[in-house]
């Protein structure tokens, strides 16, 4: 182990003087970082990755909670199903206990040992009884009913959960905007708002909202959202992009208005 440590350090020391970036590259990266030229799916992925590091628990807590909830749900479901489906009951009793009670046709019930009323020596003489019982048709029917109701519960839970992950929803919205499918974009953005209101990609969601409204020339709504965005995310990398989107929306709106105004006299 120690040999490996020394050898590893010695070998890795050859990487201590790896070449750095050229001054042009240094300036280029800085400009790109400051200009907020952050568009594209790869950035979304990176922002998620970065968030997990930066918030030292914040981001991972969100993901962790979701995972925990999912695991909890799965465990409960597994327990529920385990208690419903199956073929026989094994009841282990000791001594002169009461007759076995059937709970379901699959569950393995091991009765807890009660405190012995006899002395330890007497207890040794009590034989261990294992009784195997089977289910009646009535009990099977009951268990089937229970199983059906638990399936319904599963369906209900699925309805309340998001269709996909936070990142996927944002990517769907982005793709829909690119394809000029406003309805799909709005659906995705609303879904994100509903399930990940304060998610790690909330900033991206707002950017996409503004982008969508700007493209549809809904100027006042885009401006309102942009104002809220700048208040909520001061110094955002997307600021430049949003400003240019709003400017473009203004132009679109003015053009649209000019076209409408020019048509009005002719129509009258």
């Amino acid at each position, binding site marked *: 182990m120690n040999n490996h440590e020394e050898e590893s350090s010695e070998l890795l020391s050859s990487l201590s003087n790896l070449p750095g970036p050229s001054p042009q590259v240094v300036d*280029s990266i800085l400009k790109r970082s400051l200009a907020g030229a952050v568009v594209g799916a790869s950035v979304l992925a990176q922002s998620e990755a970065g968030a997990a590091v930066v918030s030292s628990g914040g981001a*991972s807590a969100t993901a962790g909670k979701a995972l925990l909830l999912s695991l909890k749900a799965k465990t409960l479901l597994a327990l529920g199903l385990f208690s419903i489906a199956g073929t026989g009951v094994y009841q282990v009793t000791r001594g002169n206990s009461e007759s076995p009670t059937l709970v379901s046709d699959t569950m393995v019930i091991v009765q807890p040992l009660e405190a012995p009323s006899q002395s330890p020596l007497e207890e040794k003489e009590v034989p261990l009884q294992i009784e195997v019982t089977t289910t009646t048709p009535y009990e099977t029917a009951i268990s089937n009913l229970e199983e059906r109701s638990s399936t319904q519960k599963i369906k209900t839970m699925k309805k309340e959960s998001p269709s996909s992950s936070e990142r996927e929803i944002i990517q769907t919205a982005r793709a829909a905007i690119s394809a000029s499918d406003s309805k799909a974009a709005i659906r995705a953005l609303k879904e994100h708002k509903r399930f990940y209101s304060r998610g790690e990609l909330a900033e991206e969601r707002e950017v996409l909202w503004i982008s969508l409204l700007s493209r549809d020339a809904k100027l006042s709504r885009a401006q309102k959202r942009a104002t809220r965005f700048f208040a909520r995310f001061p110094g955002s990398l997307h600021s430049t992009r949003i400003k240019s989107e709003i400017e473009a929306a203004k132009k679109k709106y003015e053009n649209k208005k000019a076209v409408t105004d020019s048509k009005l006299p002719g129509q009258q």
Partner: protein
Amino acid sequence: MEVKQAIRTSPVTGKFDFEEVYRDNIAYLWRTLQRLGVPPADLEDRAHDVFSIVHRKQDDFDQERAIRPWLFGIAFRVASDARKKAKHRETHELGQEHPDSNQPHDQQSIKRKMVMTGLAELSLEQRAIVVMHDLDGYTAPEIANELQIALNTVYSRLRLGRARFVMAVRALDRGED
């Protein structure tokens, strides 16, 4: 070994000075990305990804902490994400030089190439921990904190990664594939 400390705040404003942090750490980050196996052609884009995240998250950064482990953590996740996306891992094996790169074939560069090939044998998690510990000189608790993994996992990955790395380099040295 790398110097751990770096300027974190502007001496004038006392706030996180992005440009200063960038200038102080870009060379370190560049080398870190190389050590994590990012191909030379992708270094600029990955460095940009890292600093985009840094810029976005600068307000969340705890200024009492050293910045380089934080940067390393981000670089690790960026490299990890890039590796997952790489479709042709065999041809673009992370950490290997491009076949057409004009590297001088001196003793130092041969050894460096051997080390990079040895590191490429490790998983990215093992690789990051070995580099952080044996090259950058971070302690195991620091690594556990930055990579958000259990301390015992750090020790385990370090031990296994180190052994695998050394064995791989030894095999290369003997001329085995």
